[in-house]
């Protein structure tokens, strides 16, 4: 389902809040914002292809964020639909510690098909490969996974694997009073190398670690 939020003229800028669109978004649905030159159909059976100029340097971007009354935290939030055969491997050194601090993984997935698929998110300690816990996650959702209580210490490096779907792994930390927030995503394995066959490096790393902890 697509609803128009209006027209943005060249050089204009607009900030859209969740409250502004709350009435348009069905319960448990994932809301996606996009810019298009021509309006997509109001109803479609798959994610509409956007009629928009694409650039890569820099890429079209949008800054997304979370806020409380006391604080806000932002990150670059653009996402392209993932392939249904995608998988996830990432290493997340973002856990923060201290009284009243909470940590979450927000695993964001979007696919062209609106059908929900469930998959297991496996969380390991990289050193030793011990499985700490599995969580159920699904496609076309911002899956919120609590990271506290899994026994990670400050020197531990959590590893996240999902063999059934890809996603953007966002790490969100907050103080219980909402006065402080932190949000950032980790890189995919392909970012560990530049030039050459980067995607082969990603395949190689996934193959190695998926088999190592299988």
């Amino acid at each position, binding site marked *: 389902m697509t609803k128009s939020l209006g027209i943005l003229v060249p*050089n204009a*800028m*607009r*900030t859209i809040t969740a409250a502004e669109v709350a009435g348009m978004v069905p319960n448990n649905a994932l809301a996606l914002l996009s810019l298009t030159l021509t309006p997509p159909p109001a109803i479609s059976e798959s994610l509409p292809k956007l009629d928009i100029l694409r650039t890569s*340097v*820099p890429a079209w*971007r*949008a*800054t997304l*964020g979370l806020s409380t009354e*006391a*604080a*806000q*935290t*932002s*990150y*670059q939030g653009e996402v392209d639909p993932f392939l249904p055969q995608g998988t996830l491997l990432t*290493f997340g*050194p*973002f856990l*923060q510690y*201290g*009284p*009243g*601090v909470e940590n979450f993984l927000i695993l964001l997935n979007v696919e062209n098909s609106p059908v929900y698929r469930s998959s297991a998110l496996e969380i390991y*300690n*990289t*050193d*030793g490969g011990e499985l700490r816990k599995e969580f159920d996650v699904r496609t076309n959702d911002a899956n919120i996974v609590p990271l506290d209580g899994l026994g990670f210490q*400050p*020197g*531990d*490096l959590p590893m996240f694997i999902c063999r059934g779907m890809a996603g953007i792994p966002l*790490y969100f*930390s*907050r*103080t219980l009073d909402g*006065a*402080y*927030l*932190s*949000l*950032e995503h*980790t*890189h995919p*394995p392909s*970012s*560990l*190398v*530049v*030039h*050459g*066959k*980067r995607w*082969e*490096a990603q395949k*190689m*790393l996934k193959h*190695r*670690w998926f088999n190592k902890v299988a």
Partner: protein
Amino acid sequence: MIVEKVKRLRRAAWTWRQPLTRRPTQLGASVSDLFVWRNSADWKTSFELMDISGLFPEAGELPERFATMYCFDLAGRCFLENRLDLFPGRRQTIELAELVGDDHGEAGTFAVFHSATPKVVTDMGSYLAERGYVSFRFKDAPLRAYVHGNLDAISRIPDGSLELLGGSGLMSREYCLQHEMTGPALYELALVNPTAAERRCTFQLVSARSGKKFAGQNALLKPGGAALLPFHVDASEPVRAIIKSDMIMARPLVFRIQNLKLDVFHG
């Protein structure tokens, strides 16, 4: 068809032989972003160091692995080269305050190079890249604010020398910050020059409502150096920022401080 050809030619004026970054001159070189550090009574910077070579197959066959951190001041002068031990499969949070000290200003850049490139990486014609995670703590806040690196800005070739890899354009170009700056807040935009020449940059604020231009700020960035420019934004006048330079992508690191709370992100 002619319209399409004209479009492509016009686009080529901006892209032909003007890459965002160049390849290192030697295979086996290690690559890093130029991360921003801030260190003062109000600011602390940390870097999450992982043994990324050790993540690859056959890592056990590599010679002893370590990382080297180079720290630069805002003028791009290197004042520190420091070896860091690596711990496979572990997270190591490096506190920059212990390394940069108080004698090199309150901000600068740093790079981290890994000593050993796995053979599987060089076999693919690739280079190991450190584009990891920096965090900033403002005024002893209980949480750090994280931001990831994303540019292959500098390389260290096997003989130990450093190469800046950033590209520049034939024509000056504008980078529009993809964020509406709202107040009341203090914004500090940090812009790094990853190119091998001095770059003149202009920071222009434009009213997001009326399009009115406010007085801009200029900065001259030395090679490998950076500028950190403050902008106070009122609640009554949201603005957008445009950065003009001949760097291919003059995308700043944005520090936003409101009610003594920090938000940091790429624009």
